[in-house]
């Protein structure tokens, strides 16, 4: 990249805020591992040394939504679980992105049934749909790269300060 040479030569670089913010954002995507069923096993494989999600700056799997930018919904989402998924998504700070990992999450998959939501796009804005049952770890990395490209293309003004939606407490009965 020649950044070192540039810095030693001139001592400064010129860029835009958008480019700098985009570059910083896309190389430090912190995922929220929303592992619900078997896709979560492949998601774990992505963290191991063979596939190594750390190469893309996303090794920091946070188990609190408040520190995450990217939600990887990995597994079958039932109607009962959908409220929990949405509640966690609502707690993530903007800008945030969603990967629908696997057939179940994208379309209900083989669970064509009364209890399974036929695609999480019915209650979440999805950025990437990932094919596979479950998808290979390489495929998840590919999805992450595409999310990075999407973040790289984004402008700072795309994410104005928003009022957070009011969280509704689920009736626990």
């Amino acid at each position, binding site marked *: 990249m020649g950044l070192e040479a540039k810095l030693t030569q001139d001592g400064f670089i010129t860029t835009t805020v958008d480019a700098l913010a985009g570059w910083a954002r896309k190389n430090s995507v912190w995922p929220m591992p929303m592992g619900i069923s078997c896709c979560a096993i492949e998601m774990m494989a992505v963290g191991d040394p063979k596939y190594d999600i750390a190469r893309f700056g996303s090794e920091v799997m946070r188990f609190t939504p408040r520190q995450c930018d990217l939600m990887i919904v990995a597994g079958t989402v039932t*109607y*009962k679980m*959908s*409220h929990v*998924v*949405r*509640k966690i998504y609502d707690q993530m700070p903007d800008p945030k992105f969603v990967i629908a990992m696997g057939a179940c999450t994208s379309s209900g998959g083989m669970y*064509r*049934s*009364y*209890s399974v*939501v036929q695609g999480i796009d*019915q*209650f*979440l*804005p999805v950025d990437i749909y990932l094919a596979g049952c479950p998808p290979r770890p390489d495929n998840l990395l590919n999805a992450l790269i595409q999310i990075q490209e999407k973040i790289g293309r984004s402008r700072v003004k795309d994410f104005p300060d928003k009022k957070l939606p009011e969280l509704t407490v689920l*009736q626990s*009965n």
Partner: protein
Amino acid sequence: MDLKEFIPQKLREKIPDILFKENVYRDELTITFDKQNIQPVCKFLKEDPELEFLLCEDITAVDWAKRTNRFTVVYHIFSLKLKTRLCLKCDVDESDCKIDTVTSVWRTANWHEREVFDMYGIRFNNHPDLRRIYMPEYFEYHPLRKDFPLMGIPGSLSLPKK
């Protein structure tokens, strides 16, 4: 003596006023009787020192849709002493969709019976905590009944707002 003969014979001797039918299929013994006898039979099978059916493996039901006695409640129990399984069956009609609980015999029956109630709508008399176990509490239907559509009833389960 073969266990398939021993268990029915034992039942006939010890609780002679309870009528039952026995059936052996694929080396497994099934006993069918009236639903009002479920508690005494289970209590006997568990507490008799020669039988000791201590383990209630599963309780489930069958929906026969158009039959007179629409449901059959099925109990799978296991004896650690005899190392054998036993299947108990009781017919329950839709007009009187109730059967006595066996929670007092096997405590594990609590959740099994809640599942049967959730999926088939069969009520269990004197159950300590008869609530739905899988479906949300506000759900109005019983999904494993034959007249329940595979994809459910639109609007019966809520989704979060987008």
